[in-house]
Structure formats: C-alpha cells, structure tokens
C-alpha cells in the first residue's frame, strides 16, 4: 500500500506539480486558457525545446553538450547573413546552418570519442571557440536587413519572407515553429523508444564498455548523438533568425541553461529518471507556462527566477526523494 503510493508519487509527482502550476494560473488568470495564449506559450518555447532535444540526445549517450548555446548563436548569424549578405536561395539558407551544426557535432565527437577528452571539458572548449567564431564572423554586429557596414555601404539583401514564415507564420492559429516542434518531439520519441538505434543509444549511455563488447558500435552511436545535438541546435538557430527577423549576436548563450533546466525537469516526468524527449518537452512547457503566467500576473520580473527555481526543486525533490527511498 505504502509502496504503491510511493510509486505513484514517483511516477506522477512531477506531473502533479506541473498540473498544479497550470491549474493555479488557469484559475487566477481569465485569459490563460485561451487557444491563442496556449499557442503563444508553445511558440515561445519552440527554440529552447529544439536545443533541449539536442541536449537530451547527448545526455542519453551519457555525454553533455555545453556548446549548444554557442551553436545557436553561430547558426542564427550565419542564417541571417546568407540572406542579407549573400542573397542565397532558401534551400542554401536552411542547409548551410544544418551542415554547420553537424560539423560542430563532429568536432565535439572528435574531441570526446577520438581524443577521449571528457565531455564537459571538450564541449566547454568548443563553446568558447564557436562563440569566438560567430562574433568574428559577424564582427560583433547584429545582422539585419540592408545593414550598414562600417564603410558606409549597405548590405544588398534582406530576410526572405518565406523564410520568416518558419518562425512567424501560423497555420490554423498554430505557429509553424510549434507544428515543427510537435512533429519533431513525436518523431524523436518514436525513434528513441521503438527503434533499435534509440535503444542502442540508451544502452551505450548506460554502460559503454558492456555495450561495446556486445557488438554495438559505440563510437558511431556517440558520434551520431553529438551530431544530432549540433543539428538540433542549428534548427534552434534557424528558427531564432526567422522569429526575430535578424541575426542577433550572442543570441544562444542564455539558451544553454534554460534548455538544461528543461531536460532536467524532464528526468522527473513519469518517473523516467533518465533523459527522455517527452519529459524534455514537458519541462520546456513548464518553464514557458511559468514565464507566461507570472508575467500575466504582473509579478516583479526579478522574482520569476525564484519561482522557476522553486518549481524545479519541487519537481526534482518529489521524484528523487521517492526514487531513492524505493531503491534502498
């Protein structure tokens, strides 16, 4: 009996906290539960969730990718510059950043898998390098339509209106970025849960040596996980550029901690106790809901972080306290 209620608390503790938060806002705020507000919330978290999906994948293979924020910064600047500086067609504008994300993933994999530098250290180093590259590339400027160069001349291009639809367009009132996000979350979830590749990733993360001796190509699996993390960060960067309509300098760095927080809340969801993409999505939604609700309630902006942290602690505490009690 006691065991059962424990198990229940573990499985649903975090979810209950989240539902509690949402219910609270729903009761307090008349406009909270409107379709357009809910789609707004989803729209506001789409970028960070894409980044968080990448972090989730790296965590599944027992890695940690600190460079995702910098990757967002680089790709968002590159995306904007391809249109504004070089007036490239849409396909190039989309593909080049994705390739850059993949290359950064490969670089991380090279350092981690090949040179065997511990993940946190290696990705910290790439974080600095990519951060430096993107600022050097943009010379510290934000890249905007017809931007003015120091010599007084102007850039010829501007952001492609079709491209802007990715981040700003809607379909049945639902932001296109959200539709992309939901499809991605579902696809990654299916990939991780039902395919052998997903299984191999979890197993590699669980015990690399045993996985290797069981015939899994662990280096390949881990490399692909980092490449995927880079690509998802690049998608985040593309959406960022589209949403903001320019290439903001250093746009990605705040996204690192935010996405990590989402992934970590996700640990607690449904008592998974391990990184999982549905959890990550829910974690992200929780953060989005908090920002939205607290703003609506006109709570002092500087107390938002206290609430965010408090909810995070609560969700984690419920999950892990119960998880560990049942373990010993």
């Amino acid at each position: 009996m006691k065991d059962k209620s424990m198990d229940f608390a573990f499985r649903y503790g975090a979810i209950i906290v989240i539902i509690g938060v949402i219910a609270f806002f729903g009761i307090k705020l008349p406009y909270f539960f409107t379709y357009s507000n809910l789609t707004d919330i989803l729209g506001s978290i789409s970028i960070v969730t894409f980044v968080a999906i990448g972090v989730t994948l790296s965590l599944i293979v027992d890695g940690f990718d600190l460079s995702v924020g910098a990757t967002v910064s680089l790709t968002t600047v590159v995306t904007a510059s391809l249109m504004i500086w070089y007036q490239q067609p849409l396909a190039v504008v989309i593909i080049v950043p994705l390739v850059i994300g993949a290359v950064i993933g490969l670089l991380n994999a090279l350092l981690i898998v090949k040179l065997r530098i511990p993940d946190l250290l290696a990705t910290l180093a790439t974080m600095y390098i990519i951060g430096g590259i993107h600022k050097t590339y943009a010379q510290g400027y934000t890249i905007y339509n017809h931007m003015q160069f120091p010599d007084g001349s102007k850039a010829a291009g501007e952001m492609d209106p079709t491209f802007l639809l990715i981040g700003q367009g809607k379909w049945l009132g639902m932001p296109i970025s959200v539709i992309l996000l939901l499809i991605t979350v579902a696809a990654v979830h299916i990939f991780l849960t039902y395919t052998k590749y997903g299984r191999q990733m979890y197993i590699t993360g669980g015990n690399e040596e045993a996985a290797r001796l069981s015939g899994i190509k662990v280096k390949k699996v881990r490399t692909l996980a980092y490449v995927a993390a880079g690509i998802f960060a690049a998608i985040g960067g593309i959406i960022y550029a589209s949403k903001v309509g320019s290439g903001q300098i250093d746009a990605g760095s705040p996204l690192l901690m935010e996405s990590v927080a989402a992934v970590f809340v996700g640990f607690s969801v449904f008592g998974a106790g391990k990184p999982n993409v549905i959890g990550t999505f829910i974690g992200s939604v929780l953060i989005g809901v908090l920002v939205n609700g607290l703003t609506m309630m006109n709570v002092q902006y500087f107390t938002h972080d206290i609430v965010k942290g408090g909810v995070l602690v609560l969700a984690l505490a419920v999950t892990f306290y119960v998880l560990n009690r049942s373990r010993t």
Partner: protein
Amino acid sequence: GIKKEPAASQASGAAGETPKTEAVTGPLSGKRVALIMEFNTGTFSQQYVQGVKEEIAKFGGELTTFVADNDKAKMVSLLDSAINQKFDVILTDHGDSLLEPGVKKAVEQKIPVVVFDAAISVPGATVLSQNDQKMAELTLEQMKKDINGKGNIVKVWVAGFAPMERRQLAYGAFLKANPEIKEIAAFGSAQNPALDTQAKMEAILKQYPKGEITAVWAAWDEFAKGAARAIQQAGRDEIKVYGIDMSDEDLQMIQDPKNPWVASAAVDPTDIGRVQVRYAYQKLNGDQTEDSVVLNPVYVQREALPDKQISTSELSQYVEGWGGSTQGIKDWMSEYGITAK
C-alpha cells in the same frame, strides 16, 4: 563576397568619408589610445566603436580595445592594466561607479580619461553622458500627446544599469505628474532581451485584450524591438511603442509603417564615439575641458522620416541634430581635418 550596395552618395557627416590612408603627422599623432568597454556586441556598440576608431584615425592615433564581456570586475582589472601599460589616453564605455578608483588613479598619473555613460565624478576626468532624463521625457511627452493624456501603458525596463535607472527617474516623475496615465504591467529581462521581451509581451497582450492597453514604453531599444514584434504578430495595431536609443537596425523598424514602434529618442552612437575622442585629444593638447559633457538626444519619429529606407548615416538630412555633432571640436583640430561645418 558580401553583396553590398554603395554608400548613399548624399550621405553627410564623417561616416561617409573614408578615413585617411596616409599616415597622419602632427604633434598629437602616434598616441596610444585604450578603449575599455563593458561589452561590445550589438549594433549600438559597434557603431560607437566605429566612431571612436574613425576619429582616432584622423588624429593618427592607435586604438587598443579592452572588452570585459559583461564582467564588471574584469572591467576594473582591464582599466588597471591599461593604466599600467602607460597608454596615452584612456576611454571607457559603460561600467558605472566601479570605474571610479581606476579613473582616479589614471588622473593622478596624468593620463587623460574620458568616460562614457558611467555615473562617476573624478575631477580632471571628463564624463560624457547621454541625457537620459531628456530622452525619457522626449518619448514620454510624445506618447502623452499621442494618447491624449490618458490610458493604460506597459513599461519594459530593468534596473541594474545606470542609464536605465536614470530613465526610470524621469518615468516615475512622469507618472506622478500624469495621474490619468496608468502603468498596468511592467516587465523586462536583460538576459536574452530579443526573445524574452517578445514572449512576455505576448502574455501581456493576452492578459489585456484589445482596448486595454494604450501604449508601450520601452526604456531600451532591445526591449522596443521585442515588444514591437509581439504586437505586430498579434495584429494589435492599436498599440504604439515608444523606445529609447536607436541604432541603424532600429531605424528600419521605425520607418516600417506596419511596425508599432513609432518613435525613439537617441544620440547617434557614432557621434558619441567621435565626441569622446575629441575631448580626449583636447586634454592631450592641454586644453581646459569641462568634467561633464552631456550629449543632447534627438527625437526621431516615423512622420519625420522619408518613405525610402535610409540608414543612420543619412538620418541627419531628415532629423535635425542627428549625426555631425560638433561638440568638442576646437579650431586647432582643423590640422587633422576636423572642422565644425
């Protein structure tokens, strides 16, 4: 290569002129100038640096930029090391009261110091500041006029930065003086302003449906951009945004007739850089300089602007007082090609 359009031919002011390529010779040439910046990303900062660079090039000086990357303690250290490395001139950008001990030390060592946008007072050092009160007042008064003296407004603002705090003072006074204008919501975030402001503005728009918000006042252009995007995407074109500060990037938004951001008050960032350098060279030249120089802002609103898109370097043709500031120019500077037109 990068596809560029040529510089607008009618561009006036120094920005259009390319800095001289041949070595400048004069009694003040060859000076080593240190510029210590709290941060240097973003269009405003870059245009400012551009101004500093151009003007130093005219004097034939050599610029070294120290950037603290938002770490204020690092800024203190960088200032210290600039002093220890015996630079001829020290310029600082942002950073606040923390600069005071360092500036004092520099002045004691007879290094000319010109400070931009930091509230410090050290006799002998010139502090350059935008007139933040004035900027806030200009936009607030215009807003008041546009909304007929009453309505519900939203403020986007954060504390923690001296200019912001000065703007808040004007805002507070304005609210007191206009009891019919009510602040119904206030938010802001210095972290990730581009996206965060947009997400929060969206929430506010939901909370206060059509008719409940009259205008938005943003104490910083980054905030104005985010708020404007949210309003535009939500189709709430009844709400207008008033901002402060303006870079080339912002100008386009204000020019865009569909954009809710209609007006801003600002000082040309390139001008700030130029004026700062001139005061520094005055000090080098042994001129008497005042300890406080206030750069007067100009008010820029959509109606005053042409239909065709322009850049800040062309703005002076349409808005009086923008660009080509003659503050700090002395006759002897004509030797270096700097003259008040």
